[in-house]
């Protein structure tokens, strides 16, 4: 069994938003794959957390979904960013930077 790294709590929405913002409309599997590849296999998104998160983001109106033809010629649900999602991404990034900066200050060698 390979080792998995948990995605830090609260950052999953940000990762999904950023992914969709960068590569455009994408289905769930693509989003998960992209995060895994870019993070060089460090971050793995479990289906069990991905789909509830996607549903949640649909409710919030950050994403909208359309059914399209996928690369393997199957119907797939493609998620794309809304203006509200873009705004949310900016806010989450800023918050993440703020928190990371603060953590950095705490753990910096004196």
């Amino acid at each position, binding site marked *: 069994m390979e080792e998995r790294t948990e995605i830090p709590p609260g950052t999953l929405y940000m990762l999904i938003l950023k992914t969709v913002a960068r590569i455009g409309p994408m*289905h769930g*599997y693509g989003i998960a794959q992209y995060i895994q590849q870019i993070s060089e296999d460090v971050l793995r998104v479990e*289906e069990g957390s991905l*789909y*509830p998160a996607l*549903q*949640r983001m649909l*409710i919030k*109106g950050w994403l909208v979904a359309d059914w399209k033809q996928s690369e393997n010629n199957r119907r797939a*649900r493609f998620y794309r960013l809304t203006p509200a999602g873009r705004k949310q991404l900016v806010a989450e990034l800023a918050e993440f930077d703020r928190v990371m900066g603060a953590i950095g200050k705490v753990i910096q060698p004196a």
Partner: protein
Amino acid sequence: MILEVLRRLAYYFRRRQFEEDLDEEMRHHAELAGRPQFGNITRWKEESRTMWGWTFVEQLMQDLRYAVRAMKNNRAFTALAALSLALGIGANTAIFSFMDAILLRSLPVNDPESLVMVNWHIRGTPYTRGRAEPNTVVYGMSGSIYEEGEASSTAAILPYPAFEVLRKSSSSVFSSVFAFRKTGRLNVSIKGQADVAGGEYVSGDYFRGLGIPPAAGRLLIGDDDRPGATAVAVVSFAFAQARFGGIANAAGASILINNVPFSVAGVTPPEFFGTLPGEAPDVYLPMHANLLLEDYPFGGPAAMYLDQNFYWLEMMGRLQPGSSRVQAQAALAGPFHQWVESTAKTEHQRADLPELRLVEGAGGLDALRRQFSRPLYVLMALVGFILAIACANVANLLLARATARRREIAVRLSMGSARSRVIRQLLTESVLLASLGGILGVFVAKWSIPFLTLLLEIDSLNVSLDWRVMSVAAGLTLATGALFGLAPALQSTRLDVMPALKEAREAGHKRRWRAPLIALQVALSFLILVAAGLFVRTLSNLQSVELGFNRENLLLFRLNARQAGHGDADIASFYTDLQKQFSAVPGVRGVSLSHEAFIAAGSSQVINVPGAPPDLSTHLLYIGPAFFSTMQIPMLLGREIEERDGPNSPEVAVVSEKFAKKNFGDENPIGRRLVMAGRTPRDMEIVGVAKEARYGGLRREVPPVVYMPYNQGAQRIVAGVTYYLRTAGDPLAYANTVRQIVHRADARVPVTSIKTQTAQIDDTISQEIAFAKLCTAFAILSLAIACIGLYGTLSYNVARRTNEIGIRMALGAQRGGVIGMILRDVLSMVLIGLAIGLPGALATSKFLGSFLYGMKPNDPLALTAAVAALLAAALAAGYAPARRASRIDPMAALRHE
């Protein structure tokens, strides 16, 4: 935010589509990942679904479906429990709606809180009749005076001069003062159509003081209320609708009131009913219009407006902003005292002068409150008991169900159900049951309000379904449902799963709750049964009161020719002529008339044997010829009043047995003389003595009565009369003939109050009839509900004890013995209930003492009947389960578990 809600809603309505989408998406994912399985797809779907926030609703729907299914399986018991709740809630709501309308609601006027009623209070009881020297300054009155406690009285009627004193001295505390008085029946003729209407005389400031805007035209103002003003009237909204076909037609119309032309100035708003709840006047007239309409109002205009010792007007004031009732009373007490002292003529009168009192006026006059407050509290208490009995039933039902379902619950818990989820499901069931009862209760209340209005004979009271009470009663049942649904739910879900799964069906510890509930129901039913027994006995006592005349086949109706324009000169001949015409109708055996209906009569004047002191208790009746033969009151001595006793023959009188005995002892009164003092003097010869008959009602003691021909003496006494037709067969069949004859004689004279003598007697005891009927209904209801509870408990007990009974029978117990054993259970529960209920029943019957007639409060018959009814009902409820127990096949029972 709103968009989010919309998205959630869109999800809910298309959730099947969403589910399929999610499913397809996940399968697609698995395919791309090159895995045949997508892990626990169901769980992830569940989690994704939870995100939409519909879980609660979906589970609720699930619970509801399950609850409905459970109810269907328990149909009879559910129906009975819901029905008993519905009756409990409905009855409470209906009765409270009446209480609210009569006792609690404020007048529908502007700022009712700042209105005050002017009352006075006196230590003794004023005697107004027949004293050379009245004991108080109240020499005469027309209106009600109420005794307060042992030796004091209070009233809301005042002389006109007092009104002027208050008007002058109150400007610092009142922004307006106004007076009013009922008119009695008026003959109102609109475009030739004459009919009877009720009215109110009001002073000029009445409408301004109450703050009422007109619905059409204008209302009365100060200038309308003075002698000699143009005759104007204001009509009520309902009257304008009914008689003019709309408020627009009413304003400006010309009408005849008691044959005097008036013009309608305007219409009051629809919700306005004057100042007395329960009486809605049709016509409002300026106070001084009574000078036009009444030929002899209390001795003429002088007496009405100038007499300082004649009490007849009711008054209200509106407090100035910032002044209180207490301040106003303090400010007015002085001027009133000064005035009232000046009206006293003797030391005795000066020693006990009326004291001014201001009471809250927001609720209007209190006549209806005085009449109905105690009866309504009694009814309220009874329906409260019924609700309690119904709640106990629901509790019983739920306890039984919870016990029966211990196994089911244990199974669900062991399968991994969350405890909260199980509790929620049980709660859903009980709340659903309570809601069902509540909804049915609304219908019960809606239907019973018109029925109650009819029964209590309060015609013009605006009773609307009271939603506050509805919700209180519904809340109460919900709470019952929740409490008795939750307690067992908590208990059963706390159980150790293993023993409960293994356990057969024993759950004895729940049983200890049920017997006390049954005993409580029995106790409360007993109270209601005793009350019903007392009321029914009272009614039957009243109905078997010896009338002294024959009530069967007697038609009564009323005419008032004076109000239609007949004067002293021809009024008696008009009535005599009608009497002849009625006599000629085929099937009419006898006709007579009197100035008041005999059973409702109550007039008195000082009539005495010359030289003897005046007897204050003597009452009188002005009658037509053949009165005694028509009523079938036997003459003991002499003769009755006949046609020959007319205006031109010597004045005569017939006296009652009691009068004769009181004034003449054993002597023969025939030929002796009687004199009537006052404004309509007579000097009469006694020509007959009539047997005792119920003059003035069933409950009152019969007074000594003097009967005099209506067409002798001063003719101004002749106004309205009641006719009596003794008929062959159904009296009401003659009503149309009567109307035709009167219409032909004079179309301006309406025929009113047509009813049989039996119906009229029932009218005088309408409250007793209503109580007997209502309480009987309540008693049957409570008995039925209690029996349902008893039946349910016993059936459950028998089912639970199948095993034990089987063993007993296998060991030789006989069927009769088994039945006896179960019925002993019933008896013990009933006896405990009776023991609890007895002190309450005794207290109840004591409290009801003032409602009773012809019996002591602790009437043994009523108590015995209640006990017998309870025992019979309980044994009947217990018999079916007992029989079922005796039919248990020992072998089957032993194999049973």
